[in-house]
């Protein structure tokens, strides 16, 4: 195979040269970095990466190949976090063209090409990361030798949630005696659904702007999702209506931001976000600390939480909000990912906490 040179061009004019190892498709989007050391199949299929060019700081990528992209009878992916790759591109330092794993079916390169997603290797991802750290995330584009120029980059004003959310209601694990949980799909990772199903509840997955108040339910779960939460005003309204039922509500990642918005807090953009498997959070007012998996660029401004609300978790590195709860109502959310996939599984107990509230 002919190796093509590829260039990552940032909005400030800085360029990084490397080689294409994915689809030869020029793209643009928001350039972000992820410091996780493994889990590229999960990350690539995480809808929260929609519109983003994902830089992996861990240099060696592709070592264990890619598992079969198969689906279970209930429609959930066996190994992946959604139905396709959502990240717009993958940027790494040292792509491993050969892999070794009993569960690997193809190389990362083969998969990227099949899904039409570009990959670029040979990049000084550390230098790139430090640039993003100093300047904040930036728009950028990938140009590939002999291909058309990349489209103009856009990110913040786009409603990515609308692009990735399901288009109709999907029910999982139905049953007459089961508790019913409405899961608002802002770009939900399949493991959130798996975690709920495993706990014996019926999951009713609805599109992000669906008026779920019309449905019968025992609780509401707000999923993760890409982009700027301020583009999802309709959802905030629906949550506010639901609050009047005093039924349990939980949220993850964008779900945390949406619950915060519904409560009346404001959301702001972090300079370069949290995308990693090693984010320390502390449960406010306790000595309990957790290592969490995170993938977000926006955060709830805890100072703007109205009366009755308080922070549930706080980030131990930068002090940013990592979760909120209501003092008397059964409502809480986490900015991090208790469902992991990829990342540490230490906070999966939050699903248990939510299920407990349903009783």
């Amino acid at each position, binding site marked *: 195979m002919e190796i093509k040179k590829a260039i990552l061009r940032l909005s400030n004019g800085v360029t990084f040269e490397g080689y294409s190892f994915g689809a030869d498709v020029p793209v643009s989007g928001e350039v972000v970095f992820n410091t996780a050391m493994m889990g590229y199949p999960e990350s690539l299929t995480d809808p929260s990466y929609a519109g983003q060019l994902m830089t992996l*700081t*861990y240099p060696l990528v592709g070592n264990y190949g890619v598992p079969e992209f198969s689906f279970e009878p209930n429609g959930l992916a066996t190994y992946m976090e959604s139905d396709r790759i959502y990240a717009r591109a993958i940027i790494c*330092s040292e792509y491993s063209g050969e*892999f070794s794993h009993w569960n690997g079916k193809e190389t990362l390169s083969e998969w990227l090409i099949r899904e039409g997603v570009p990959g670029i290797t*040979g990049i000084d991802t*550390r230098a790139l990361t430090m640039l993003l750290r100093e300047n904040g995330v930036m728009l950028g584009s990938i140009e590939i030798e002999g291909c058309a120029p990349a489209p103009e980059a856009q990110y913040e004003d786009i409603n990515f949630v609308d692009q990735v959310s399901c288009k109709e209601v999907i029910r999982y694990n139905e049953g007459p005696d089961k508790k019913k949980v409405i899961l608002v799909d802002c770009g939900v990772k399949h493991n959130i659904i798996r975690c709920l199903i495993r706990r014996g509840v019926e999951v009713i997955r609805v599109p992000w702007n669906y008026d779920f108040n019309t449905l019968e339910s025992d609780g509401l779960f707000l999923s993760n999702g890409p982009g700027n939460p301020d583009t999802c005003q309709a959802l905030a309204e629906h949550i506010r209506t639901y609050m009047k039922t005093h039924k349990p509500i939980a949220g993850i990642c964008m779900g945390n931001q949406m619950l915060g918005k519904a409560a009346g807090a404001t959301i702001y953009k972090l300079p370069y976000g949290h995308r990693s498997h*090693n984010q320390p959070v502390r449960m406010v007012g306790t*000595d309990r600390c957790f290592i969490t998996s995170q993938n977000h660029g926006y955060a709830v401004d805890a100072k703007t939480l109205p009366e009755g609300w308080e922070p549930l978790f706080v980030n131990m590195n930068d002090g940013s909000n990592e979760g909120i709860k209501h003092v008397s109502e059964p409502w809480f959310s986490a900015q991090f990912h208790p469902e992991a996939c990829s990342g540490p599984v*230490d906070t999966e107990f939050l699903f248990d906490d939510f299920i407990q509230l349903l009783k």
Partner: protein
Amino acid sequence: MKLENIHKVLVLGSGALKIGEAGEFDYSGSQALKALHEEGVETILINPNIATVQTSEGVADHIYFLPVTPYFVERLIEKERPDGILLSFGGQTALNCGVALYRSGVLEKYNVQVLGTPVETIINTEDRELFVRQLDQIDVKTIKSEACENIEEARRAAAELGYPVIIRAAYALGGLGSGFCDDEEQLNALAEKAFSFSPQVLVEKSLKGWKEIEYEVVRDRYDNCITVCNMENFDPLGIHTGESIVIAPSQTLTNSEYHKLRALAIRIIRHLGIVGECNVQYAFDPESEDYRVIEVNARLSRSSALASKATGYPLAFVAAKLGLGYGLFELTNSVTKSTSAFFEPALDYVVCKIPRWDLAKFRGVNRELGSSMKSVGEVMAIGRTFEDAIQKGLRMIGQGMHGFTENKELHVEDLDAALKAPTDKRIFAIAQAMYEGYSVERIHELTKIDNWFLQRLEHIIRMDEELKKTGDLKKLGHDLLLRAKQLGFSDFQIARAVGLGKKMPMDEAVVEMRKYRKSLGILPVVKQIDTLAGEFPAQTNYLYLTYSGISNDVHYQGDKKSIIVLGSGAYRIGSSVEFDWCGVQALHTIRNNGYRSVMINYNPETVSTDYDICDRLYFDELTFERVMDIIELENPHGVIVSTGGQIPNNLAVKLDKQRVPILGTTAKSIDNAEDRDKFSAMLDRIGVDQPEWSALTSMDDVEKFVNRVGYPVLVRPSYVLSGAAMNVCSNDEQLHKFLALAANVSKEHPVVISKFMTNTKEVEMDAVARDGEIIAYAISEHVEYAGVHSGDATIMFPAQKLYIETVRRIKRISGQIARELNISGPFNIQYLARENEIKVIECNLRASRSFPFVSKVLKINLIDIATRIMLGLPVEKPHKSLFDFDYVGVKASQFSFNRLQNADPILGVDMASTGEVGCLGEDANCALLKAMLSVGMRIPEKNILFAIGGPKQRAHMLDTIKRLVARGYTIYATGGTSEFLNGLGIPNVRVYKKEHVDEFGQLKQPIVSDLMHQKKIDLFVGIPVDTLADSVHDSYYKMRRTAVDLNIPLITNARLAVAFINAFLDVPLDTLAIKSWDEYK
């Protein structure tokens, strides 16, 4: 929150360096002491290892150079009355000692609180049966294992589990007394050995071929847990992790696998109740997600030291703080100084650890690697490609290899066998196999090494072939050359691959290659290890170099304020913690005098590679190429080559050629001392006596020379350390055989032959000079006569039994040599002394192994003085005279023969010890007794076996044996020794070898091996007639080996035996003073 009742804490050290317990515990102990000090806690350290950094001034408040045994620790506790004790920073030695003190009620009696992990937890992890039971309680799978109390039980268990099985001794260091058995015969042999170390032996089903994965886990008393690092062994299960090439982080695990094992590790640590640090080792099925927990080490370990260096997370430091009661959330990340210590490092590089073996130094040793550790050191290489990391690592181990390829041909006859049965050379057998066309799959079949690693190695071979195809430097394009550099090819490898080495000497080819590469603009960049993969800025300068990058993380100011200290590389026999101490002292002095201290070293077991010991740490190679890269970036004020042992010393001339400013003694002088031909000529010129010598130019000359001086002769190629490639030859055959080998060792320098002196005292001069004038010095004396390598000898300082005239002559000659070589800095001269006749054996213009020992006994830091001199700062001559001392220091050697299956535990000109201790006492006897007890000698209770070769040695020992008899000891003796004693009317019991039969065909009794197996021998004094002969076939070899295998104290030198026996006869144990270093005045 910190515990309020803890004001004074005792830290147990690990004693002498030995195989399985080495420099990593100097690092962990130093970190713990730093953490305690920071909290205002008064610290007491017990550790006889005088060469360590932790036993240096200011690290602990009170330092005791005493054996880390329950007896001495109890007496120390009685005296110092600490509030708390740390057991997990001194390896298995400290842990075992702590458990014993807990069990005997000493800790309770004196109300000493164990900080960190409770002793009950330690016992639950150390006792295999309890451990399995604990893990069963939380449904965690362990390797099915049966604890057996005797050999019959072991046989039954093995039969039930089905062969192959693995045997381990409980409570043993790094796999001591363990191994694989394919059948009952092997089991019988191994089990007996294991039972000699431990009352409990474990028989387990073998999982050969599974992956081996390790996690370092931390927990605080609030139940918060993190895993700091995971590591994957390149070699599959079956090879002790200390013997494996190890990669961090894991490379072949998916997210699901990684986090499955991580979650299990946390579940385990919570259930066991660890407070501090531990590691969890897994066997992991390469075909599914099935696993078994191999073991949990509830203490700081070799792996935790490696993990600290691999990630930048200071595990020992944090563990000590947690032991004091802090929560992880109360501590700060030591690298960023702003984020929390409760986090898991994200690496943006790959780390490769490779063990360093020295098996060639041992006669008869088994080279096959297995579940017992044999390596004496290790290196850690950092890169942004796996290929780079492993090639760097293979250069770092310092066995003359240039990476994975382009090495001196190492031809293996039976490749399949070499791949199947792992040895210290297997990695190179893989290279050969790849060149011979073996596929990755086939090599995987034979080695069970994961395909991914093999694919990466094949990648290196393919690059090498591409380089070879160019055939000419000028045809080497930018992209190909850059890619080769990214894959870890050194300039040397590339120069050789493109054939440059055929056109000119390799030294020149490397310089030529470097020029060409730079002309294409291909330069390495410097990256920082920052624990968070760039997410937050690092405040420390923990650095490595890579070609996979476009920009430096460090902004060089070109202020000429940097002083680069070259480190000592992998620990090996002859070069270990003592040079780490020297390097660290030099860094201190540099820092304290306003310069920027810069260290280059790559040994993860050291304190010098702790990023806060210097201003910039380059964790990278000490090759000419890499050192030049760093020098060109740093543009330093100067480079120090004299505190890191032989590796930097050997670079001096090459660096000087590139006009690198070398501080202190000039490269030319170093060369004049190192080159034995030049040095010997110089001695003749200045009228200093030396053993008769000759430079080898032709065989005729050799024969003439030998005919004149007679055997034995010492044959030495230039530039050696610790006797490598140096040999004593007793006859023509040995001489011819060795010369054939030696000629290959170094072609650039002539081989020198000298008369080998016996029955002669050896004296050492450690000194520091300025512009050729000696400023400070220490003269010490060997207990053993010449013939025992100075690194193995027992050394007394100040010298106790030298004539004043001898001392005066040594001072005078040393002064002459210092002047002649115009020395500025540290140096060491070794002398032979018979009567008052003095001869120089060798001279090193660098710090020697004994610098920390003499510095600490003298209480004058010779490295500090030397460094000040090299920096051009004023120094004063110390006023202390040799006669000011009311105490004596004795340095004794630690041997690790018990680890080295079949190795002959005999001493000769080749160094064999792996470590040393130094103890202080009111007189020579007291100091010697403490030192000998510190290296594992035990005072015999009743029975001593003597096998003394030769009349001279028997006569030498006669008085001592008489004293033993008078004190009620039973003397056992072999044939000749027994006859000798009988002749003098000294009662003794004659012992026999298995082949001795009486006239009725019955075996004569008692049989020596039976006595040993019945544990009836408390001490074996086995003095060979001729230590120089090929000893493995010596009939006494078996006796010596059996003693070692059965853990019976063994002494093989008559003078040492006399000194030790007289010491314990003269000094009752309970009269030994428990005095700290500062109490000796």
